[in-house]
């Protein structure tokens, strides 16, 4: 009932949620229910690929929440995504048990390789799924909170803020590359076997992860809608447009930014946690500054400040990327660049802005 009110006046959002629900039912059904070669069969490869896109969609929503509504151009959200991913990866590592190459029941392979004797303290607890889930939420939240506490209180805004978000993810990239950190160095975490007792290689598990990703995206979208549709959401857009004025109305701008930024980091972390079991690996390149910039491109292509646009952007750009890397391995970057340029020239407000523009025009004609 309350989700009906949330979606009031949000037709594209409703369409998106219906499509998501349909995908969550039909894709696993077509994958599991029809044999390979059947007309309606969807390959496991495709299902996992789309599942990965859905995680990117959630990530894009989290960036759009802070960029499109609050005016914070975060170029570091890849870090929150990666931290969520690592938290899940650590759980998956512990699930390997003694099935690793070295067969060590206590330590993951890379620790055996480094001649470590004991499990580092921060790996304790990751044997438990609920603990890992807690960390998926708490670690990105803690980083975002600490970062925001200093940045927003000292009123760093605009380009300077964007630059320090880049610095943050870059610093983490360097840190996670180091073997001594205890996160597998440049190889990261991989060779996962199962999740909650279900083998990761099986189609059923992959279908489950697909459904989980679609659900997370839908819920994340609704939560963001709840925020942007509330009075707090209107204060956020006011901050985006006229930050000093909002202070003179009596709002503590830094606290509002801190709340929304931290929430957004949690969404990014959850996206990362769902992404890792589907791709089967997490390594430090996920912290690469370029990744964070790419997320912003998805949102820009989709149209910022609409949330559903971010999802559309993430899907379109990543589909184009997958297609182009396969079809033109040498030229795909040019294709991606061209897509970005075309969108900025012909659809300055992104795909979503273009669609509402078209819609309005059609109404005028009628």
């Amino acid at each position, binding site marked *: 009932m309350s989700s009906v009110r949330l979606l009031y006046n949000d037709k594209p959002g409703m369409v998106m949620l219906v499509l998501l629900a349909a995908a969550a039912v039909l894709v696993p059904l077509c994958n599991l229910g029809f044999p390979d070669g059947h007309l309606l069969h969807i390959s496991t490869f495709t299902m996992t690929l789309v599942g990965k896109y859905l995680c990117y969609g959630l990530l894009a929503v989290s960036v759009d929440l802070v960029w499109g509504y609050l005016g914070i151009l975060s170029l570091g959200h890849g870090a929150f995504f990666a931290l969520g991913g690592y938290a899940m990866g650590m759980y998956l590592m512990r699930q390997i048990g003694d099935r690793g190459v070295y067969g060590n029941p206590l330590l993951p392979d890379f620790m055996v390789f480094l001649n470590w004797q004991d499990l580092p303290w921060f790996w304790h607890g990751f044997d438990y799924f609920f603990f890992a889930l807690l960390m998926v939420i708490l670690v990105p939240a803690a980083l975002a909170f600490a970062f925001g506490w200093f940045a927003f209180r000292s009123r760093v805004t605009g380009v300077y803020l964007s630059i320090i978000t880049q610095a943050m993810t870059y610093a983490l990239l360097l840190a996670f590359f180091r073997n001594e950190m205890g996160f597998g160095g440049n190889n990261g975490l991989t060779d996962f076997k199962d999740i909650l007792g279900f083998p990761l290689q099986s189609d059923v598990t992959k279908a489950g992860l697909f459904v989980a990703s679609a659900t997370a995206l839908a819920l994340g979208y609704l939560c963001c809608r709840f925020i942007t549709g509330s*009075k707090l959401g209107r204060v956020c*857009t006011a901050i985006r447009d006229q930050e000093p*004025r909002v*202070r003179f109305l009596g709002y503590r701008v830094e606290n509002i930014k801190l709340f929304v930024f931290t929430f957004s980091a949690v969404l990014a972390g959850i996206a990362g946690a769902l992404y890792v079991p589907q791709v089967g690996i997490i390594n430090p390149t996920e912290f690469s500054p370029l990744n964070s910039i790419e997320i912003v491109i998805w949102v820009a292509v989709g149209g910022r400040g609409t949330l559903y646009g971010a999802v559309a952007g993430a899907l379109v750009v990543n589909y184009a990327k997958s297609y182009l890397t396969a079809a033109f391995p040498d030229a795909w970057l040019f294709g991606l660049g061209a897509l970005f340029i075309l969108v900025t020239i012909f659809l300055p407000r992104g795909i979503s802005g273009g669609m509402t523009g078209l819609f309005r025009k059609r109404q005028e004609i009628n």
Partner: protein
Amino acid sequence: MASLQTLHPLFNRDEVFEFLKPDIPPSLDLSRGIILYLEDISVSFDGFKAINDLNLYIKDGELRCIIGPNGAGKTTMMDIITGKTRPDKGSAWFGQSINLLKLDEPEIALAGIGRKFQKPTVFENHTVHDNLELALAGNKKVLPTLKARLRSEQQDYIGETLLLIGLGDRPYSPAGSLSHGQKQWLEIGMLLMQRPKLLLIDEPAAGMTHQEMERTTELLTNLAGEHSVVVVEHDMDFIRTIARTVTVLHQGSVLAEGSMAEIQNNQKVIEVYLGG
């Protein structure tokens, strides 16, 4: 050794740290009938003294006009009162109990000082109604704002204010589509939503037609009494129609103070301002 000294409060068990103290600002005390004290305020920008030993007292319920040529420091004075600019020296008190120099912008706003800027600053992408809603007095912390729903009396108050500022027929227009004068009124309306005790109004008549100016005068004179109002203007005609106590500001300090008639006959004022 020095670092041990700084740690000392940690060992002191009944020390209550500054950040743990409940965040209750002292309430406004108007027992002496004065709502704003500015004393010996000076501020300079890169060596240029924009405000120079300024002394100003505003009575509770008063409508005070402040005039002065461009660059006299009128806007800077408002910046100091509202916490945007920190003075180099001097003191600023809101009533008997609230030290403005210890508070920041949102705290000062919540304490009861509202401000209209020289350049109208409304939220252009928000509707007229939403602009008023955002300004509405109430709990402005994060979670209460997230959960806030307009109560019917708040909705009524928004409706009344819309009529008062002459925008009753376009509550759902984006504020960006309003004329310059209408934006000025909307900003005054936002001030009213805050239910402040003291209103600071910077050049309300700028860019207004004669008719609009008359309406503005009416609006401001209606406000005085229930609120204390400080109006900054450099349009003499406008000040004349309000005609209350006038303070003349020149080169960052008070040149003269008195009724409009006194000011117009003051030799110093004629020399520096009216004389030209």
